[in-house]
C-alpha cells in the first residue's frame, strides 16, 4: 500500500515535470505563429474580459493604495526639488558674480587698449577690503610690494580712475579713492582742454568737484573730464594723461566768486569694485 502510494506520487511528479519541460522546449523552439503561441493568444482572448472587469472593479482600491504611495513619492520629490532649487540658486548667484567679474575684467582690457596702458605695466588686483565709512574712501587690494606695487601708483578700473596707492605691504596694498578728502587729481575737460583740479565733494561720494576753473571758461554739462597728466617737467603728475575721471553734471557760476565750480560724476562705480588695475610705471615712489 505504501509502495503504491509512493509510486503514484513519484509518477505524478515525474509526469508533471516532464510536461513542464516539454512545454518549455516546444514553446521556446517554435515561432511566434506556432501552435502553443496560438493557444496562448486564445486563452488571453478568453481571460482578458474577465481581467478587465476585475480591474475596473478594483480601481477604487488601487487608486486609494496608489494615493498613499504617491504621497510618499511626492514628499521625496518635494525634498529633492528643494535641494535642486537651493543648488540652482547658489549656481545662479555664482554665475552672476562671475559675469560681473568678467565684465569688470573686460572693461579693464578695453581701457588698456584705448589708452595704451600696457606701457605702464598694469597689474590686475582683486579688492579684498573696503573702508567701513559711508564715504568709501579707501580699499584694500591683494597685491603688494612683492608684485611691484609702490606708493603713489595710480589705480584704475575699466570705467576710469579711482585713486592711488597710499600704503603698501609685501602682499597687499591700500588705495585711497578719489572721493577721499585728501585726494586731488589734475584734470582737464576733453572738449575744451580747460584744466583744473578734481577734488571730492565732502559728504557726497558720488560728486566730484573740478575746481580752479575761471568764470570765463565755458564748460557745459555732459563734457568728459580726464586726467591732465604732467604739464611741467618740474611737477610731474602721478597720473598719466587721458584716464577718464567722470562727466560734468552741473556748473555753479556764482557771481561773487572768481572761479566757477564744476560738478563731475565719476565714471567708476566706487561702491562696487571687484577688480582694479594698478599702473606700476614709473617704478619710483614719490617723495613723502
Amino acid at each position, binding site marked *: 500500500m505504501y509502495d503504491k502510494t509512493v509510486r*503514484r*506520487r513519484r509518477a*505524478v*511528479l515525474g509526469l*508533471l*515535470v516532464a*510536461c*513542464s*519541460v*516539454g*512545454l*518549455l*522546449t*516546444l*514553446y*521556446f523552439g517554435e515561432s511566434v505563429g506556432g501552435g*502553443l503561441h496560438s*493557444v*496562448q*493568444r486564445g*486563452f*488571453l482572448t478568453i*481571460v482578458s474580459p*474577465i*481581467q478587465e472587469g*476585475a*480591474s475596473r472593479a*478594483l480601481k477604487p*482600491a*488601487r487608486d486609494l*493604495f496608489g494615493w498613499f*504611495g504617491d504621497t510618499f513619492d511626492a514628499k521625496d520629490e518635494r525634498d529633492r526639488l528643494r535641494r535642486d532649487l537651493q543648488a540652482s540658486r547658489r549656481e545662479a548667484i555664482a554665475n552672476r558674480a562671475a559675469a560681473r567679474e568678467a565684465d569688470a575684467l573686460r572693461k579693464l582690457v578695453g581701457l588698456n587698449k584705448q589708452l595704451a596702458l600696457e606701457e605702464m605695466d598694469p597689474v590686475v588686483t582683486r579688492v579684498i577690503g573696503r573702508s567701513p565709512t559711508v564715504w568709501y574712501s579707501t580699499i584694500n587690494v591683494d597685491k603688494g610690494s612683492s608684485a611691484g606695487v609702490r606708493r603713489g601708483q595710480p589705480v584704475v578700473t575699466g570705467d576710469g580712475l579711482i585713486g592711488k596707492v597710499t600704503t603698501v605691504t609685501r602682499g597687499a596694498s591700500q588705495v585711497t579713492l578719489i572721493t577721499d578728502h585728501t585726494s586731488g587729481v589734475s584734470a582737464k575737460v576733453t572738449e575744451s582742454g580747460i584744466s583744473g583740479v578734481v577734488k571730492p565733494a565732502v559728504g557726497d561720494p558720488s560728486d566730484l568737484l573740478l575746481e580752479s576753473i575761471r568764470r570765463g571758461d565755458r564748460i557745459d554739462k555732459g563734457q568728459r573730464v580726464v586726467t591732465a597728466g604732467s604739464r611741467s617737467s618740474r611737477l610731474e603728475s602721478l597720473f598719466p594723461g587721458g584716464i577718464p575721471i567722470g562727466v560734468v553734471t552741473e556748473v555753479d557760476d556764482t557771481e561773487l566768486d572768481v572761479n566757477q565750480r564744476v560738478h563731475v560724476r565719476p565714471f567708476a562705480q566706487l561702491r562696487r569694485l571687484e577688480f582694479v588695475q594698478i599702473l606700476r610705471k614709473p617704478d619710483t615712489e614719490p617723495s613723502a
Partner: protein
Amino acid sequence: MIARFAALVAIAGLVEIVAVSQFPVFGANATLAPLVVMAVGLVAGASAGALTGFAMGLFLDLALVQTLGVSSLLLVGIGHGAGRLRELRNPQGALLPLAAGAAATTLFTVGYAVIQFLLGVDAPVSLLLLRDIVSTIVVNALIAAPVFALTRRWLTPVLPDDPRRRRRRAYTTGGLSPLSRA
C-alpha cells in the same frame, strides 16, 4: 473536490494578475502563486500540491503571455516539496506559513531568474534585480499567513479526514488522551 482546486487556481491567478501585481509595497510586488501552491501542498499533500502548481503555472504563463512551462516547472517543485514536508514532518508552528512562504517565494523568484538566464537574456541585467527578489520575498512572507489560512479554509471541507487531525481534535474537545486512557 477538483472543482474547488480549479476554482482556487483560477481565482488566485486572477487576483494576482488584476490586483496584487498592481499594489506595490515599498517598491515590490507580492506574488500569490508560490504562496497558494505552498499552502495547498501543506494542506493536501505532495501530489495535490504538484498538480496545483502545474495548473497555476500554466494559467499564469497563458494569461501573461510568458514562456510556457517555466512557472509550471517551478511551482510543481514547490507544491511537491511543501507536500512532502507535511507528510514527513507535519510541522504545526505558528510561524510555519511565514517560513514556508518565504522559502517558496525564494525558490520561485530565484529559480525563475536562473531559468531566464539559461534561456538567454538579450538585455543587460542590473544588480537591482537582487533587490527586487529580496523585496518580493519580504512582502510575500508578510502575506503568507493570511493566504495560508484562506487556502486551508477553502480546501478543508473537501479534503479526506486526516487521522492525525482527528486525534488532535479529541484532545481539544476534552476527550481522553491515549496517555490518560492507558
